[in-house]
């Protein structure tokens, strides 16, 4: 009979726990099962991947998430439409303004509200700023996982700080902006803010050039990223993948061009496509999208008209849409972000459903990772660009 835990363990050791680990040669023997996460330096948040390895190759990958589930959709059924708006900030917490826009779009579809022109321009400007800072941090984190000790990440964050300062000046908060309302925007932008925004946009092309100098021609980056994590376009379309992942595989689908929502039709911009569907293509598509966003910003900041920023008939309190349903979607930086609302005439929605792009994009993680090395799994996962707030809601 053993008394202390040490003695107990020693007893177990005598029984046969004391064996060295077995690394199976290829094609036979046991598989090495590893759980990567939820505490891991490279998973973007609390996320677990159960890997089964044969030597270094991945044989099976099961993603396990839900560690950040916060009952967003259920809460939304208990509080009013307006009160859900700050909760949408916290879905994809890096891109709060696009989340706000998607929700506002869904409610405006439900009620048929009109949005004044100035508000539309402001929405586009803020959405493109959000896209730039999201892509910059996504690339920065990807390179950090590759081991460049965070240098490109620091450069990306330097630019991001300028954009976040703009957000704070306008909305009051750097990340949880809570700025869009049903029928427009909460407050108007001042001329001083527009001037500041133009200055920030003027400094962005140089930042992207420096970024590309550091990275795009780098042979080690090319060796690590090219040919890794290939996603075939048919699989992407069948699985419902959207966003830079889809365009990196060569499928031309950008909701800004497909749905013509907002006033995107007035801006001339191109949609970059990749040919191979690997990690390098997704990385380059994000860089090229940043450049296209700068084009849109230049046009929008020049053409922004005067006028009100809120529909004068819009109500903040006591907002009861007629019974019906609506699905509003936008091209969020990570993919298609959609909100599905069913209203039964009351002040709270009957059903409130978020279609998160990160969750849908994660479904093909196993297909992309099969047969590659463990080191590549980290890269492929980084190139999907997920935020756990969105995946788990």
């Amino acid at each position, binding site marked *: 009979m053993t008394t202390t835990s040490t003695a107990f363990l020693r007893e177990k050791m005598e029984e046969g726990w004391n064996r060295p680990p077995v690394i199976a040669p290829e094609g036979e023997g046991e598989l090495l099962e590893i759980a990567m996460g939820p505490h891991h330096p490279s998973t973007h948040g609390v996320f677990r991947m159960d890997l089964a390895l044969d030597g270094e190759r991945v044989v099976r990958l099961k993603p396990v998430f839900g560690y950040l589930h916060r009952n967003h959709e259920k809460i939304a059924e208990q509080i009013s439409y307006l009160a859900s708006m700050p909760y949408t*900030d916290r879905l994809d917490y890096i891109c709060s303004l696009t989340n706000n826009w998607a929700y506002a779009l869904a409610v405006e579809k439900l009620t048929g509200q009109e949005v004044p022109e100035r508000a539309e321009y402001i929405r586009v400007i803020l959405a493109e700023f959000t896209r730039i800072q999201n892509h910059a941090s996504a690339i920065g984190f990807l390179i950090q996982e590759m081991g460049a000790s965070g240098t490109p990440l620091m450069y990306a964050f330097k630019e991001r700080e300028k954009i976040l300062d703009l957000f704070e000046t306008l909305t009051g908060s750097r990340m949880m902006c809570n700025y869009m309302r049903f029928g427009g925007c909460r407050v108007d932008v001042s001329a001083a803010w527009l001037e500041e925004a133009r200055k920030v946009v003027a400094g962005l092309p140089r930042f992207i050039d420096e970024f590309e100098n550091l990275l795009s*021609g780098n042979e080690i980056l090319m060796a690590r990223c090219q040919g890794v994590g290939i996603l075939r376009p048919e699989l992407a379309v069948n699985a419902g993948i959207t966003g830079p992942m889809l365009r990196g595989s060569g499928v031309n689908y950008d909701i800004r061009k497909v749905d013509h929502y907002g006033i995107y039709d007035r801006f001339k911009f191109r949609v970059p496509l990749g040919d191979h569907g690997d990690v390098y293509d997704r990385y380059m598509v994000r860089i090229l999208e940043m450049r296209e966003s700068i084009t849109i910003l230049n046009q929008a900041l020049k053409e922004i008209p005067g006028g009100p920023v809120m529909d004068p008939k819009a109500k903040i309190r006591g907002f009861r849409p007629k019974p019906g349903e609506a699905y509003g979607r936008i091209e969020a930086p990570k993919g298609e972000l959609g909100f599905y609302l069913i209203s039964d005439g009351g002040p709270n929605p009957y059903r409130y459903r978020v279609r998160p792009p990160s969750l849908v994009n994660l479904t093909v993680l196993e297909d992309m990772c099969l047969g590659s090395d463990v080191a590549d799994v980290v890269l492929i996962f980084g190139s999907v660009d997920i935020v756990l707030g969105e995946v788990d809601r």
Partner: protein
Amino acid sequence: MLGEGILKGMAETARNFVGSFVSKERLTTVEYPEERIAAIENARVFPFLVYDTADWEAGLRCVACQICEKECPPKCIFIDKSKDKKPDAIGKQQFYPTRFDIDISVCMSCQICVEVCPFEAIKMDNEFELATDDRFGGLLLDRKQLAKPNEYYHQIHPTEAAAVDARLAEEKAKADAKAKGAADAAAAKAAAVLAAKPEGAGD
């Protein structure tokens, strides 16, 4: 040539290394708490209650209408309405809050309470160094801790405070004009009655 991209990358890093000694742009560290970045005017952290006169209880603009309590998304505001009434800034008799608590460990700084308040009574503060080690109530701010004077509001959000003051002054002027008009009408009516009486009495 193999290695060209690597050399370009290293040149970029070297440029940043040297630049960090010479230009402010390449060394953006602000050493908190010795140095601080100037607060941006519109920044919002947690709410506070505005009061007008020197007496924080009497001058509190809040009339306990409880709209902010209803609209708050995480339900972090707790209000108890009074049983009696007191006159407010424009002289009307209003209720007042006997208890107004905000749990700032729950508050998500969404500013909806500010948007829906019809009396410009609750505004957003920008103080964030509120950490405390009392976890059983240290973050539950009561009425006294939340009440701050209008001058403080002017200090932290000058443009907004000026606009609010202008709006309130306008409302007061309208209320005064209405009151004056009503008083004039009542006086005229009384004078008319008084004038009509001797004639009627002379019957």
